[in-house]
């Protein structure tokens, strides 16, 4: 007998929205979307309402008013008479500078540590493990402050530092920063710069050619030395031929500080140092994972072919592990960039310190500054992702 009690009538019933599998997922999706949008709307309306209640409008015109404050370390011309947007630009460049430096050094240190962590030498591998675990498990902010404290206490004040130079007349280490000679450009320096750029292009072309030649004929050139020659020799020749148009500007002792040269301030150095040491521990773990993921058979096969361990690592293992390493590395670089916003703790004026700090505070434009700040960080992060993803694409195992 038939047990079906479902009426033949197929007309839509309200309860079908959650009883019927055909509609249920839509119902849930709509509900979730309603909740999410409501929360978002509530936040926005609340902000608008509160701003109105405080009698504040929403406008970005403050960006064009004079900032009125000075900044210690800057890559572009800036004074307190410059506009707020200029201060934000100085901050942005400072953010990019420290993020770039930290990404480079963290990668270098991290790859070393990651490889050494796998060393057969028990002491070395244990030491690396201690470093990684120690550094990863202490909050970054504390590390930044600690490094800063070390720098301002270990290095002498400028007055004493000039008496004990690192390199007499050229390099000085003080508790306020490191002074190195700067470059001065005069005369036809453009020719020298142009030669250098041409040499770099030439070097890249040469390396490509050498690589193709090796693939075709199996002959190996002394690529390293030749590249160096291409890079250095023409530039040197042109430099001297054009009457040495690029000079050095040496730091000299002043009344309070050293004058001239290039100053790399302690805030920058401490932040760079702390970010590098901290992030290198993560890089090391990523590298270790990448190497361990390559089957041992690969190494054994390479040995069987007579490749020495270093070549095996650089030609067989690392290129393959790169594919595994890069994706987590992208997020690590993003983290470095975002972590650099702790800069203000040691007085390094990054984007958070200028736009999100002093500008925000002096103008009272919290909403505007925060929105700009978030948009900028988002943009930086997306750009890094895009570049790294493109790189990832290029080393990916190509389906043949």
């Amino acid at each position, binding site marked *: 007998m038939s047990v079906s009690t479902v009426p033949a009538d197929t007309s839509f019933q309200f309860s079908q929205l959650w009883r019927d599998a055909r509609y249920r997922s839509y119902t849930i999706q*709509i509900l979730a979307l309603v909740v999410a*949008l409501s929360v978002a709307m509530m936040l926005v*309306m609340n902000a608008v*309402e509160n701003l109105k209640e*405080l009698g504040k409008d929403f406008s970005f015109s403050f960006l064009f008013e004079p900032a009125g404050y000075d900044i210690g370390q800057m890559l572009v011309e800036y004074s307190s008479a410059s506009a707020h947007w200029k201060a934000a630009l100085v901050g942005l460049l400072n953010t990019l500078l420290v993020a770039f430096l930290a990404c480079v050094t963290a990668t270098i240190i991290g790859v070393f540590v990651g490889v050494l962590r796998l060393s057969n030498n028990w002491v070395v591998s244990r030491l690396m493990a201690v470093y990684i675990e120690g550094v990863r498990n202490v909050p970054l902010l504390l590390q930044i402050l600690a490094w800063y404290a070390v720098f301002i206490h270990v290095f002498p004040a400028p007055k004493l530092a000039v008496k004990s130079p690192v390199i007499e007349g050229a390099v000085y280490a003080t508790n306020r920063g490191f002074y190195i000679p700067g470059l001065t450009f005069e005369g036809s320096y453009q020719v020298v710069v142009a030669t250098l750029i041409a040499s770099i292009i030439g070097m890249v072309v040469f390396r490509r050619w050498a690589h193709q030649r090796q693939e075709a004929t199996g002959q190996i050139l002394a690529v390293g030395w030749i590249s160096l020659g291409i890079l250095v020799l023409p530039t040197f020749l042109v430099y001297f031929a054009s009457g040495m148009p690029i000079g050095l500007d040496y730091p000299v002792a002043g009344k309070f500080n050293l004058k001239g040269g290039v100053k790399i301030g302690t805030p920058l150095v401490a932040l760079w140092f702390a970010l590098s040491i901290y992030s290198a521990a993560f890089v090391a773990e990523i590298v270790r994972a990448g190497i361990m993921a390559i089957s041992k058979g690969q190494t054994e096969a390479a040995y069987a072919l007579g490749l020495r361990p270093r070549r095996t690592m650089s030609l067989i293992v690392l290129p393959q592990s790169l594919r595994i390493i890069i994706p987590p590395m992208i997020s690590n670089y993003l983290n470095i960039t975002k972590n650099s916003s702790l800069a203000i703790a040691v007085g390094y004026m990054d984007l958070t310190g200028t736009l999100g700090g002093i500008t925000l505070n002096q103008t009272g434009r*919290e909403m505007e500054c925060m929105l700009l700040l978030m948009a900028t960080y988002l943009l930086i992060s997306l750009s890094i992702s895009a570049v790294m993803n493109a790189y990832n694409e290029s080393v990916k195992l190509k389906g043949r």
Partner: protein
Amino acid sequence: MKKMILPIALGAAFAAASFSAASAGTLEDVKERGKLRCAVSTGLAGFSFTDENGQWQGFDVDYCRAVAAAVLGNPDAVEFSPATGKTRFTMLASGEVDILSRNTTWTFSRDADLKFTFLGISYFDGQGFMVKKSLGVSSAKELDGATVCIQTGTTTELNLSDYFAGQGMSYEPLPIETNTEGRANYLADACDVYTTDASGLAASRATFENADDHIVLPEIISKEPLGPLVRHGDEQWADIGRWVLNAMKIAEEKGITAANADEMAANSKDPEVKRLLGASGEMGASLGLDNDFALVAIKAVGNYGEVFERHLGTDTKVNLARGLNAMWTEGGLQYAPPFR
């Protein structure tokens, strides 16, 4: 079906979001909570610091206690939040605190752009410079090229930039966030000069181990009228804060102290004293407070002069003379409007 999701959801979201929490008056909020929320500095001797028992103490702190006493009848019903020069305005604007009492200078833009109401001037100050004696500097005009420690988010950094530009001198700023950080950097020689309000310099110097190795230079480069402030838009709350401060000043003028306030309220013949202490008139009610709000406040912390002498005066280690902050009757600038 799929296409329908977004419009439906949007419609529903609009409906859901179109209610907003209407905020009651600050006075009602404070009474309901039973606590006054007050932002003070993170630590500055004499102005606001935590003593060995973890109690907040100081000139700025006592003002908050006076307001709590006036509003809630209890000077200890205060929740203190330490604020840096940078975070203070956001804390106040966001409603995280009811009142800000943190060495804050009254300026045009803080009033008109940041939308805050200043309640009066609790301390007339000006920006100064402190250097180590060993530098051999005796005037701010000799500071060309120096590294200067400076608190971010303050008027100090703007004045500094103006002053050096005006003198045709240059400097290297070392931005710091709190007074504690400033001390550390200055003492470690990471900067040559520490600049902030002269009162703050005196307070910081007082806590140095070898205070005599440091001098405050004679130049005062700005006007820094410091006072408590609240958000724009709640006149009743602003009036309360303003008149608690005024009451403390009038009390000093009239010789009312924490010790004799009760007796003065009972026996004084002076009509203004009687009005102030709630013995006649209905002044408190106009503020939405008890009639004896000023009496309770003065009994809790004392009059303006008592608070000053207790935390900043020449008998304390901060060792500041009344100077501009003496009553107008004594040749100073402190002057409260009449209580009538």
